[in-house]
């Protein structure tokens, strides 16, 4: 984890602090434990998606299939639980994760074998998943239901800390360890910088790509499961609001969109920042037009800070 801590990755944390302070001027309650822990809980959903996205972006790719992997996983898990069959409800979460991994592999095949740019291939996969979901809902659609486990994962808390947040952080730490302590992590970054040289060093680059996309898929799926737990239901296109914030969270966290550079520590900050920003803009009842403008501007400012700092360093 520490290896991935850079000044850039600290930027969003500073941003978070500033936001909280600024927000507390308008609403003192922003400083309340209730509000803050709530933000942690909600940030976890975005955070899980961003965690997966970070892995793929480190690889030098991008995954646009997040929204409907998320939705698909949610529909699948709630359907299994809704079936009322104890066995099926027990495997609901694992099944959803498997679904995510599977889609991840499909993404990986297009990218690593057919060499299709991830940006369009994952987009196509996304629209196929949408098609599947529509088709499924159109046919016999079982009564969906979130299992107590899913609800606990999304809304429960341990000593005041939201479980969703704990899951997210635990996963991030685990993955960060995985990225820094295993060859896989090294291969990931190396491919992000220079896939050819990595391949020539005797690395089976396709399998690295598969693994990365599979992990990302599972993260999206987990996000879907927990969102289903949160809303206690699954519904069409519940993932659509998450795509762009996910990417924003990753880059604000200092991960280079070109691949190779960055890490999960920054992404955590990025997800927290984006969540808090949206929340504060929302509770301040700022008109939608201005929310868009402010949101975009703040992101730009953060990024400009990053380059300014580099300029100063160089």
């Amino acid at each position, binding site marked *: 984890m520490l290896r991935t801590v850079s000044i850039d990755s600290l930027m969003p944390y500073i941003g978070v602090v500033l936001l909280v302070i600024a927000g507390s001027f308008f609403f003192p309650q922003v400083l309340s434990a209730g509000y803050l822990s709530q933000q942690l809980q909600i940030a976890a959903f975005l955070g899980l998606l961003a965690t997966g996205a970070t892995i793929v972006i480190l690889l030098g790719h991008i995954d646009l299939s997040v929204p409907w992997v998320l939705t698909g996983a949610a529909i699948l898990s709630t359907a299994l639980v809704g079936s009322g069959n104890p066995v099926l409800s027990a495997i609901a979460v694992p099944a959803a994760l498997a679904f995510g991994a599977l889609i991840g592999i499909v993404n990986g095949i297009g990218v690593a074998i057919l060499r299709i740019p991830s940006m369009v291939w994952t987009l196509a996969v996304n629209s196929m998943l949408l098609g599947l979901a529509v088709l499924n809902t159109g046919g016999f659609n079982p009564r969906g239901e979130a299992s107590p486990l899913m609800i606990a994962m999304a809304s429960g808390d341990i000593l005041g800390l939201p479980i969703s947040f704990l899951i997210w952080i635990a996963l991030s730490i685990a993955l960060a360890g995985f990225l820094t302590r295993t060859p896989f992590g*090294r291969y990931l970054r190396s491919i992000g*910088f220079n896939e050819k040289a990595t391949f020539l060093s005797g690395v089976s680059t396709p399998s690295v790509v598969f693994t990365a996309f599979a992990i990302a898929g599972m993260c999206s799926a987990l996000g879907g499961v927990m969102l289903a737990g949160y809303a206690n239901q699954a519904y069409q296109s519940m993932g659509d609001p998450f795509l762009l914030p996910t990417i924003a969270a990753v880059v604000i966290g200092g991960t280079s969109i070109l691949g190779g550079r960055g890490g999960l520590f920054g992404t955590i900050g990025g997800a927290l920042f984006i969540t808090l920003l949206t929340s504060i803009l929302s509770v301040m009842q700022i008109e939608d037009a201005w929310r868009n403008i402010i949101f975009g501007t703040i992101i730009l400012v953060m990024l400009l800070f990053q380059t300014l700092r580099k300029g100063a360093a160089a």
Partner: protein
Amino acid sequence: MVSIMSDNSTPLLEMRGISKHFGATKALDRVDFTCNAGEVHAVLGENGAGKSTLMKLIAGVLQPTHGQLRVDGQDVFLNTPQTALRHGLVCMFQELSLVPDLTVRENLLLGAPGAGLGWLAGTGLDKAQDVLNRIGAGQIKMGTRVADLTLPQRQQVEIAKAIMKKPRLLILDEATSALSASVVEGVFDLVREERDSGTAILFISHRFHEIEALADRVSVFRNGQRVETFMKGDHTYSEIIGMMVGQKIEELFPPKPPSQRDADIVLDVQNYTWESQVRDVSLSVKRGQIVGLGGLDGQGQGAFLMGLFGLLRKAEGTTAISGQATEINSPKEAKKRDISLAYIPEDRKTEGLILDQSIQENLELAALGRPDLDAGDTALYAGSLDQLALKHGGLELPVSSLSGGNQQKVVLAKWLALKPRCLLLADPTRGIDVKTKTQIYAILRKLADQGTAIILLSTDYEELIQLCDETHIFFDGKVVASLNGDDLTPENIIAATLNVASEPQAAHA
């Protein structure tokens, strides 16, 4: 830009107290340097001596940290290549300035004199064309994508492109590093002509016979400083090397041990064929043997080497490692313990290294995949690094901060960590200075003595003769001559590369 014959009293280009720092590295340190019209001024120095940096300053690609440049006695500030061009300072860059996805024609037009952002008239193309013809590149079609050209062809285009700009000062930074002897001659004639018409030439090369052939004056650089400047012939070959490396180099090539016939065969390839580029090639390498692959560029030797490393699909023929017939379908398989081949690719910057990562990380990348090795263990590399005397400011620095010679050492060390049974090298000494070369030759020979089998592809026939126990010359995908012992002479090699099999020796190929 018409080239005025400036009288020799005021030098065409004058540099005063020039320093260039990259963070900690002092690429150039208070250098004074002048260059007169109508002379070929050779610049010598080992890798990282600062030659290219100096040239990049003249070409306006880099700006000096301190110091002043003068053209015709006038102070100038070359903030961009355009400004340099306006003064007639043209550089033929070492890492070429050709755009891969554009055609040869488009590349020649790019930044050609008078070519602005508007409509491109295509002036000067014919000039470029006859330059190409003269340096034996007539067959290059104007319509081909540069990406589809071989490295030598690109260098030829780059030369044409430079000359097309009617330079007053022409810089050739390792312009000929990949060109075969015959082509080089054509280039030299051209350069001499330019010189005689009053152009100043700055010439960088690591090949002494080229300096010998072309230079009027010579400047030697070491560690970012100009050691000395003198007329060619004022100093002997070994004196110059002494200046370059700051110490004497006794023998460029290590002595060849008598080849032992009975050593067992490590790698044996039979009837290797791929597409139309490699045709029915059979050869084998014994323990402790260094086998050379020669020939003009693109005759199949490069592809053959790739094939051995499992980079070619649908290749025919059989490969046996120490008697074991084996299928090698990927680098991953090739580096497995029971096969343990290593391949040093031709282009270290894009294929051998990950420039943005640290030296350490690059060293580890190959060993990581080997369960029997602990890639993190620095002892794995220490040996070869000492032997190669890697010049670096810390293993955690990006490998890009090394000059090419040192980058090449990293590529070697990275693979030597796997203690490969058979080492495949694709022109490992291109653009590498003498000292580094000797270090590389020494370590290759040592490895051989320790039992490693080595296949060395080289464009430098000195290496094929002095270093290799046996040399196979490729022509049009086939091995047209296999030379060893006394047959291993320049004449035979040149004859074979041009496939004029007049010499009797070539018979038993």
